[in-house]
């Protein structure tokens, strides 16, 4: 088995969906780190409702990959105890909206145990959360919790936007000695992309990346909104407008330097996210950029976001999630802004 794995690892470039890329990363993590454990609801025999853990229980046994009872606080609390016992838990909560029952354990325990114990009880826990909307699912299956998580001292938060990032950022997260919330944009699970398995310079996995260069304005996004912003940039280019797309990736800590570098060049910024507007992570990004680029900004930072309404049912999803039109309106506002 591990020889085949070695061979596979040597294959430099693969076409994988994000779901496959995460599955592969999880397999390699379990292979390389015998303290790593995967558990949650339906992650075992079933392989997860999105098949992200497909085949892992078969491969690593029911001690390493196991189903828990249906209780998210229980999953997180158990993960904390396992981390205290020296394990590296990689729990899953099945959907974003079902992380709420675990919020108490996440905020008051997971995020503070290292602090409370003065560094004696580190929490190398990677919590996978299939996140964000766009799949016409029932209630609570389309929510964006990044603002909640990013506000919590002691957590790190990351979200990949494509298979290549998903593979490497997950491996990076799982190697970190601190708790990381890994937000998987479920709407992108099935989109394929090129994955270069070669171990990159790990510093390339820190901070944001420029997904597309441009000079007229910067679109700042994460998760599934990155590909949407790339589409917008494509469209805008037809009109001669060159938009830069900055993929934030790390939602905590935020790459303040990367943001400042891009926006001080383009002098205009639009931040795009799915979660509700008020106190969304877009507010933090806008506040940071407004401060760091105060002199260079030529227009107020625009926020094109979900509205301050509960995430709606499938039929209204496209009205809620920033769509191409709404993002283009935002771009237009920053480009046409004239000081009064």
């Amino acid at each position, binding site marked *: 088995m591990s020889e085949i794995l070695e061979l596979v690892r040597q294959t430099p470039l693969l076409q994988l969906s994000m779901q496959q890329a995460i599955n592969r990363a999880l397999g390699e993590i379990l292979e390389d780190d015998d303290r790593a454990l995967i558990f949650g*609801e*339906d992650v*075992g*025999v*079933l*392989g997860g*409702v999105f098949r992200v853990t497909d085949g892992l229980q078969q491969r690593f046994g029911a001690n390493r990959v196991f*189903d828990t*009872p*249906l*209780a998210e*606080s*229980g999953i997180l609390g158990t993960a904390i105890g396992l981390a205290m016992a020296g394990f590296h838990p990689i729990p899953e909560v099945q959907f974003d*909206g*079902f992380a709420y*029952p675990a919020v108490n354990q996440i905020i008051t325990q997971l995020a503070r145990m290292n602090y409370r114990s003065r560094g004696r009880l580190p929490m190398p826990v990677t919590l996978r959360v299939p996140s964000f909307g766009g799949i*016409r*699912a*029932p*209630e*609570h*299956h389309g929510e964006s919790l990044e603002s909640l998580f990013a506000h919590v001292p002691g957590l790190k938060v990351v979200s990949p936007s494509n298979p290549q990032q998903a593979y490497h950022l997950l491996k990076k997260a799982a190697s970190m000695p601190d708790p990381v919330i890994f937000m998987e944009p479920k709407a992108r699970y099935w989109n394929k992309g090129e994955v270069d398995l070669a171990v990159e310079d790990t510093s390339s996995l820190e901070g944001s990346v420029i997904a597309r260069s441009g000079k007229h304005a910067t679109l700042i996004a994460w998760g599934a909104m990155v590909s949407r912003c790339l589409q917008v940039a494509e469209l805008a280019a037809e009109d001669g407008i060159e938009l830069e797309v900055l993929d934030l990736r790390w939602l905590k800590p935020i790459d303040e330097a990367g943001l400042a570098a891009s926006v001080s060049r383009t002098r205009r910024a639009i931040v795009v996210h799915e979660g509700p*507007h*008020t106190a969304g992570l877009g507010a933090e990004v806008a506040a940071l950029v407004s401060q760091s680029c105060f002199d260079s900004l030529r227009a107020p930072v625009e926020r094109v976001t979900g*509205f*301050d*309404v*509960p995430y*709606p*049912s*499938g*039929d*209204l999803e496209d*009205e*809620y999630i920033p*769509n191409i*039109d*709404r993002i283009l*309106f935002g771009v237009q506002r920053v480009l046409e802004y004239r000081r009064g």
Partner: protein
Amino acid sequence: MAPRALAATLDTLPSSSADAAGPGHDELRDLYRMLSNVRQLDRDAVAWQRQGLIPGYAPMLGQEAAQVGAGAAVDRSRDFVFPTYREMGVAYTFGVNMVEYMSTHKAIWHGGLYDSVATRFAPFQAVVGGSVLHAVGWAHGQTLNGASAGGLGVGLAFLGDGASSQGDVHEAMNFAAILKAPVIFFVQNNGWAISVPTEQQVAGGSVAARAAGYGMAAVRVDGNDVLAVLEATRRAVAHARAGLGPVVVEAMTYRRGPHSTSDDPGRYRTLDDEKIDGGEDPLSRFRAVLLARGVADEAFFAEADAQAQHQANDIRAGVVALTSRPGSEMFDFVFQESTPTLGAQARQWREESEHV
């Protein structure tokens, strides 16, 4: 899976006024009609999903007796039902408009379009265990209101074997027992929570068995026997209505279908498992009872089943005709009293999305 034991403690519950003689012939035939209607509609809804009419559905195949029996035991004029996402059969029995009910599966409105207050049927609930505490609070409200001549209104909370693992369910049972709230915890133990069997979910093997730890009455009942469910639930309701406190009713049944239309049970159980664990079909069982008691004949069943098909077709037509709600409703229902911020967002949405 080992045969699923039924530890009935029915004797400790008062008998309901209605069950002295048991249901009469008309009621028995009505029960069959409901079972048949619900079975047909459930089957059809799965087909609608395959046809692309609705994006998803959570079938209740196999749970008809549990749902119809429970739904028929409560009083639509004063009780209140707190469903999960799989209580189509209860909704039907309770008289909820089924087109409005199905709207949630058509991705039109999360809670369903039906009027929860008029129907006394709480909104469709996607959070596992999410509404169980509401039933306790609502029921305590009935205590505070004071009993009318016929006794207290009763809250009927639905939950699954999987849901029993949630902390909220424990808090609900403890609050209910402390408050002596007139609430029934109706557990459909259908053997599975998606891919996880009850043995890996419910330590001790029975949710009803937990009741004793709260000093609460409980009954475990054959959930595939509609008469048994009806009687057990009626007794439980009578108990609660009389102000004697909450009751757990655990109906032992089986989820014969997939968890939802996007599930693939073949990954975690075999067809043989399904045959053995599922036991006899609740509808065939009830048919046999009615035949044996001389309450109905094959002609009656044929007519009832044809009626059910007819009705399901009507509902389908209604579901086809359902159109999306206007996007403005995203904003309209957030608050009773909207806010300036939300008003501004609604205006911007109209300008940018409806170009008004």
